[in-house]
């Protein structure tokens, strides 16, 4: 299954914020249709790593290739490449001045230059997919957090991307809304889309992940399939981390 050439490839990537090194010697590959879950303590560089993939942050050293295109600061390809990469943020980041439907169609219409009618059809299809077809005409502020995050997921699906990035999609949600978002993500995982997901929801990770990644202090400490990752992690730090979050 993972024999194709990687769709995302980090080779010895370093990233600095001023003098602070946020990523150190990152080398990792994600293959098409692979579902990778990244976890690690706060401040370990998970967001930085995932944001490098669509160029929201740019790395300083090493090589990063996404969908066959090398990514570097100021690259002209990055804007085109972002159309192939959906991203879901912790804080949803919906456009508050647009209705749910407009949030979903503005990318396809303005970026992909698809007709409004066609974009509407696609948008409604994906709203159906995230189980909120009835909210199309509302504004984001009229929705619950869980609903907003599902709209955000639908928005990234509307771009018909090859890759979906999630940066702690459930961390800003009230506990009772976490499952409705995770359920949608589990369903998505079954569609064959490539997923890179930063999350501490280990139940979700067990269910969908092909590969588990543990990060600490800007380094990748452990990469393993989930059964091995959860049953016998190699590093002490990873073990300790898992014990801590699985306690709850």
């Amino acid at each position, binding site marked *: 299954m993972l024999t194709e050439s990687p769709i995302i490839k980090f080779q010895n990537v370093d990233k600095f914020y001023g003098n602070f090194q946020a990523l150190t010697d990152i080398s990792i590959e994600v293959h098409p249709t692979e579902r990778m879950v990244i976890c690690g303590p706060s401040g370990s560089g998970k967001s930085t790593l995932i944001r490098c993939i669509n160029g929201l942050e740019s790395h300083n050293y090493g090589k990063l290739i996404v969908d066959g295109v090398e990514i570097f600061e100021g690259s002209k390809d990055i*804007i085109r490449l*972002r159309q192939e990469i959906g991203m879901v943020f912790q804080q949803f*980041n919906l*456009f508050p001045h647009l209705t749910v439907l407009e949030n979903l169609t503005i990318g396809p219409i303005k*970026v992909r230059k698809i007709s409004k009618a066609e974009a509407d059809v696609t948008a409604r299809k994906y709203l159906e997919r995230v189980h909120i077809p009835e909210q199309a005409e509302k504004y984001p502020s009229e929705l619950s957090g869980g609903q907003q995050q599902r709209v955000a997921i639908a928005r990234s699906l509307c771009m018909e991307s090859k890759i979906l990035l999630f940066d702690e999609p459930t961390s800003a949600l009230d506990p009772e809304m976490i499952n409705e978002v995770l359920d949608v993500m589990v369903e998505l995982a079954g569609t064959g889309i490539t997923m890179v997901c930063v999350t501490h929801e280990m139940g979700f990770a067990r269910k969908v992940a092909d590969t588990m990644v543990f990060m600490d202090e800007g380094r990748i400490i452990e990469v393993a399939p989930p059964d091995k990752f959860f049953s016998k992690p190699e590093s002490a730090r990873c073990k300790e981390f898992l014990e801590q979050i699985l306690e709850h």
Partner: protein
Amino acid sequence: MQSGGSISLKGLPVRQPPAVNRFFSSTPVSLIIYCFIVGVILYSSFTGAQAMGYNWQWYQIPKYIYSFTDNGFQFGELMLGLWTTITLSFTAFVLALAIGFLVAFLRLSGLFIGTKIAICFLEFVRNVPLLVLVYLFYYVLGPVFKYDRYTASILCLAVYHSALISEILRAAINSVAKGQWEAAKSIGMTKMQTYRYIILPQSIRFMLPPMTGEVVHMVKSSAIVSVIAVAELTTLGQNIISDTYMAFEIWFTIALIYMFVIVILSIGASQVERRYTVIN
């Protein structure tokens, strides 16, 4: 009586402000005090004028505002001046808006040279008195680029206000949450598309209230171009006075006209403000 631990305050009146404060802030008393102060000012200017032997000629004033001649109704000189003030301010404001956008975008461009140009422009405009700017645009740049005094006044006011407007725009644009940029980028929008479809529509509610204030400010500062004799309200007032020596009547009248126009604009401005300062 108050022996228990918790005292019920149910039914107790809220403590009132002291009686003196209540007396002075009641409507009739405020009104009387207000009339008294206005009366004193009017009376003292009137008696002052009497003492100077000032010859009041209020009856002369209406003809500077409007007249009925054989040709029918006609606006007087002051109204023509007011019209010039309004068109001048309006044109300058539109131009200021354009320059303001340009400067704000230069500043926000992230390009080293763009930022530096914008900052130099802002520092220059902000640190030179408006009066000096007027002279500069008329006596220095005017002959060089061969434009008349009316153009000079428009350019000067536009440049001066564009500096203020660009700061309003920049602040409004920066008030939009950073996540909006990231979300727009992540669906593949270019910088231009992000501004147009995501950032500017959201920043309007931050920029409208101070922007309407700038309109009022523009009308007021337009009076300064009277120093290069552009035929707007203040200049025409000066001209009439040098012909008729009715300094008191004309300046009172002109102040009232400005006030009238600006109060109307301010009411409009506060309406706009009320509509757009909704928290969503």
